[in-house]
């Protein structure tokens, strides 16, 4: 007890290990990115060329695949939010048991890997020709598999992104006193839909954006279900291109990383906007 320990109140002390850790990690994470960029513009005859990027738009199937993916992503985000948001808001107002049920429902898809889930989906789709030939269900099963817009993929993607979106929205809802907001709006004479849309939802903007972004990122990169079910959205197209034109597939990888980065930065900016000074206490 004779001496005051020097560590108390430190943190100013230089710590070489921290720099070393950050340096090694930085190398590991930056080198593949740099190498990919270099690979995609490296001309085998020497010099630099951007054919892999410029040729992308005219590559056969590129536009179709990209459009299909964007449509799937939009549909998935809309369906997911329409299903999840009312349920979670209601759970905040409802009983603890209901919250528990929703938590289990939204966490269960984590336990089933996408490949296994796709196997199950194919099992269900096979019931069509096997058992349901003469029932109206058969038409439904044909309908969800139409090649122009495979609804079955939307179903799969909604379920795959359910845990991510649930966690994002739940975190947002935890930070907001939904009950007080709704009761205040209700006692001012607002109807239920109005209270939710004009009072609760604006408070959840960050969480909604977050959930939408995570879902978007998942759908844009999803390969497993689409390739096994035999559709050709973007990721599957990239895979088929990768077999013949290595440079182009790497160029797409670089672009997809950039797009993810930009989306995340936009998201962070949007989230920061409505977190003004009083938030720090």
């Amino acid at each position, binding site marked *: 007890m004779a001496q005051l*320990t020097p*560590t108390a109140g430190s*943190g100013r002390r230089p*710590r070489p*290990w*921290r720099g070393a850790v*950050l340096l090694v990690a930085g190398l*590991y*994470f930056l080198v*593949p*990115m740099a*190498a*990919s960029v270099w*690979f995609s513009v*490296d001309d085998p005859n020497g010099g630099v060329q951007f054919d892999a990027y410029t040729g992308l738009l005219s590559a056969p199937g590129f536009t179709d695949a990209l459009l299909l993916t964007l449509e799937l992503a939009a549909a998935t985000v809309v369906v997911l939010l*329409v*299903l999840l948001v009312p*349920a979670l808001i*209601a*759970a905040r*107002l*409802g*009983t*603890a*048991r*209901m919250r528990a049920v*929703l938590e289990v*429902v939204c966490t*269960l*898809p*984590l*336990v*089933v*890997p996408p*490949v*296994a*889930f*796709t*196997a*199950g989906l194919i*099992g*269900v789709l096979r019931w069509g020709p096997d058992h349901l030939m003469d029932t109206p269900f058969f038409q439904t099963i044909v309908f969800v598999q139409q090649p122009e817009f495979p609804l079955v993929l939307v179903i*799969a993607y909604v379920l795959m992104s*359910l845990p991510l979106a649930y966690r994002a929205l739940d975190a947002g809802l935890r930070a907001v006193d939904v009950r007080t907001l709704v009761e205040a709006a209700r006692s001012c004479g607002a109807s*239920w839909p109005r209270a939710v849309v004009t009072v609760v939802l604006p408070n959840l903007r960050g969480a909604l954006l977050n959930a939408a972004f995570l879902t978007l*990122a*998942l759908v844009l*990169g999803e*390969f*497993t279900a689409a390739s096994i079910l035999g559709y050709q959205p973007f*990721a599957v197209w990239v*895979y088929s291109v990768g077999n013949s034109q290595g440079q182009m*597939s*790497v160029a797409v*990888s670089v672009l997809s*990383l950039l797009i*993810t980065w930009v989306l*995340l*930065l936009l998201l*962070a900016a949007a989230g920061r906007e409505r977190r003004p000074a009083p938030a720090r206490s």
Partner: protein
Amino acid sequence: MTTAPTPVPAPAAADPSGGPGAVAAGPATPPPATRARRLRGGSWLAALPLLAFFAIGFGLPAIAIATGAFTLSSDAEAGAGSFTTANVTDSVQGAYWTALLSSVKLSALTALIGTVVGLPLAQAVVTSRFRAVREAVLTASGVLANFGGLPLAFAFVATLGNAGEVTKLFHLTDHGWTLYGFTGLTIAYLYFLVPLMVLTITPALDGLRRQWREAAANNRATTLQYWRHVALPILLPSLLGGYVLLFGSAFAAYATAAAMVGATVPLISRSIADALSGNVLVGQGNLALALSLDMIVVAVLVMAVYLPLQRRSARWLS
């Protein structure tokens, strides 16, 4: 934030059907019983679309797996649809068993490395003096943790593949390097697993109070002793939870392996995809479902460790 469950006014006398979390509408007013019930009915109604969607979209495939794994497939010569354990028995034998073991081995190893590497990285970020470092690393982790699948595979092929830039620069192929094997896959997986670990463990590290470190220091504990006896035991549940999360991610991954190593590393996810595309013997059409069942069983066993741990860790760090 309190760790105890939110105290409820408990209008038990007024509303006998109300469970422990009955809607708190204020204990003084008599009408809440009816109001509460209406509200609760309405809230289940709002959740109905989600639950119905889940029952169809998730329930039916689950039933398909559970029943299909134990029935003869329709391409069998005789007795299609009858009960059998042949699918499940076949799925844990020979090449399929090798693939399952290889998947588990790869996931366990990459998750372990990811945890061991992710912890010091997260600690370096958390204790960093510069806010910018923290922000940058956390944003990058958010991006990279989502950077799985095909782009990851292509990026590594461009870097360390046979014609990759780094391979060419250092003539790695002359030293026997190949990306298209177990080691290569491990290195590629860590590219998204380490950021995932950083994201998972950072809140826990933030929750380590400065006072604990000071108290340890006042008792003449060295840094090593502090970590050994104070920090790590508190972090252990979070670390194990993170490990399980990493294991699950690596175990479920399919696209990276499919695009990068092809068939050189047998993996259960690839076996399922192969079996689904009809690459099985006659009469084994339901083998894919049995393999899926195996995969789910492994995932459930691992996840079962995760959930109780989450609760325990929440007690200390909140």
